[in-house]
């Protein structure tokens, strides 16, 4: 799915997202990079169509996202925390979307099995989210988002609360998911090394303003404005 953001701006409380224009090509892994509080999650949620903008629009393959009902957006979203349904076991969380789409119990079970195997979480299928570690929660949320084979996967700081070893595993998971599902992936991060490692393109968002879009591999090599240089200060 191709995402086009046209001159999109929104105010959320005190925060103002300055007009953003951006195209994310189909099948791309795009990183939204910036400091905490720079508006990355606001932009991600705007791309998800959680709220309309004050101006501008977000298009999914040329159609305004606000005109597509959430259930037909073919989009999956994974939050850093609290995204799992706390009253449902891991397996029920994963198969929730399939249940809502009327899949049979057998089909739901089979798809959930496949995803749990792929993400190595079969052993926690009967546990509630409240008893899971950060990495297990993230992988469960990923499995749930993937169950309906979305064309767009949105990840809000998916690696930020994880230890280095778990991060490595999840990096591999994300690359594997991208290879198998071929979906467009947009993820939010404040870690520029992570952005360089995983993404084909990176958008640098600081203080509510999208200042630069660059190739992932070139992120740490390019020369930028003073503001971005300050942010990337520790890159060498």
């Amino acid at each position, binding site marked *: 799915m191709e995402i086009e953001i046209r001159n999109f701006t929104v105010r959320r409380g005190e925060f103002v997202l300055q007009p953003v224009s951006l195209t994310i090509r189909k099948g791309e892994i795009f990183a939204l990079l910036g400091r905490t509080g720079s508006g990355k999650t606001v932009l991600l949620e705007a791309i998800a169509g959680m709220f309309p903008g004050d101006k501008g629009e977000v298009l999914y393959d040329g159609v305004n996202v606000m005109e597509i009902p959430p259930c037909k957006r073919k989009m999956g*979203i994974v939050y850093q925390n609290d995204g799992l349904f706390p009253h449902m076991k891991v397996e029920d969380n994963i198969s*929730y979307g399939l249940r809502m789409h009327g899949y049979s119990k057998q089909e739901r079970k089979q798809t959930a099995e496949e995803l749990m195997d792929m993400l190595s979480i079969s052993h926690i299928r009967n546990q509630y989210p409240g008893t899971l570690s950060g990495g297990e929660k993230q992988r469960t949320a990923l499995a749930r988002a993937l169950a309906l084979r979305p064309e767009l996967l949105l990840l809000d700081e998916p690696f930020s609360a994880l230890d280095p070893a778990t991060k490595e595993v999840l990096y591999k998971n994300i690359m594997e998911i991208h290879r198998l599902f071929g979906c467009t992936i947009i993820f939010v991060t404040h870690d520029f090394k992570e952005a360089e490692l995983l993404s084909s393109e990176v958008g640098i968002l600081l203080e509510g303003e999208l200042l630069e879009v660059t190739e992932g591999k070139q992120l740490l090599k390019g020369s930028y404005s003073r503001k971005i240089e300050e942010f990337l200060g520790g890159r060498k």
Partner: protein
Amino acid sequence: MTALAVLLFIGSAVFVIAADGLPGFWEHMKSEELQFALRMSLTTATLSSVIVMLLALPTAYALTRTRMPFKGIFSLLIELVLSVPYLLLGLSLLVMFSSPVGKWLKECGFPVVFSPAGIVMAHLLVNLPYAVRLLKTAFETSDRRQEFIAQTLGASPFRSFLTILLPSCRSSIISTLILSWSRGMGEFGATLMLVGVTRMKTETLPGSIYLSISTGNNEAAMSTAMLMLLISGLAMLLVQTAEKSERRKTREVRESQWK
């Protein structure tokens, strides 16, 4: 020191009821009139609290999750009704149901004034704004992102309400139901204005206390009060159990985050 004084003050009220109500309690419990009042209170409070929940849940949802017009006025109205004495609410109901509409309802076989249906109506007016406010607060504090995620996964707004919002606010909903019921059991002012208190006809537990005191039978009044105290205590216990179960869940979540 102040806390101790407050505790003593509140505790003394409960102590007086227990001390005066217990001696003749079991004897008084056998009285046909008290049993009638208990049945009347239980029936009307149960019926009204079920209706209150059926009306308050969609109202709180509309106020927190939709773009319905006049939300501000609605919220203001709820606060206003909550601050009005119940006697006045009963009076307004009396005026409403004494109008031609009320008379027409009576002709259709639904008498409200001076009938048990009026008790339910009084409970509704007193408890509905209270329940809407409690549920509105619960819905406002519930994470909307989970409902959005549910909708991206194919749930309609109604199904995300049923499968995500209601379970996540379960303890608040149970508490609101129990509190509505318990307030219904103790409601007197609005009921008195609309229905009055007629022995063995529209007599509720608070009405029974009122009649007993009116006739100088303080012992019977205190025994009925003791019964109401026990019922309230039971309701409080149920609310606390619901809250404790929710807290246990939260603690599990926190502990797992520290692992």
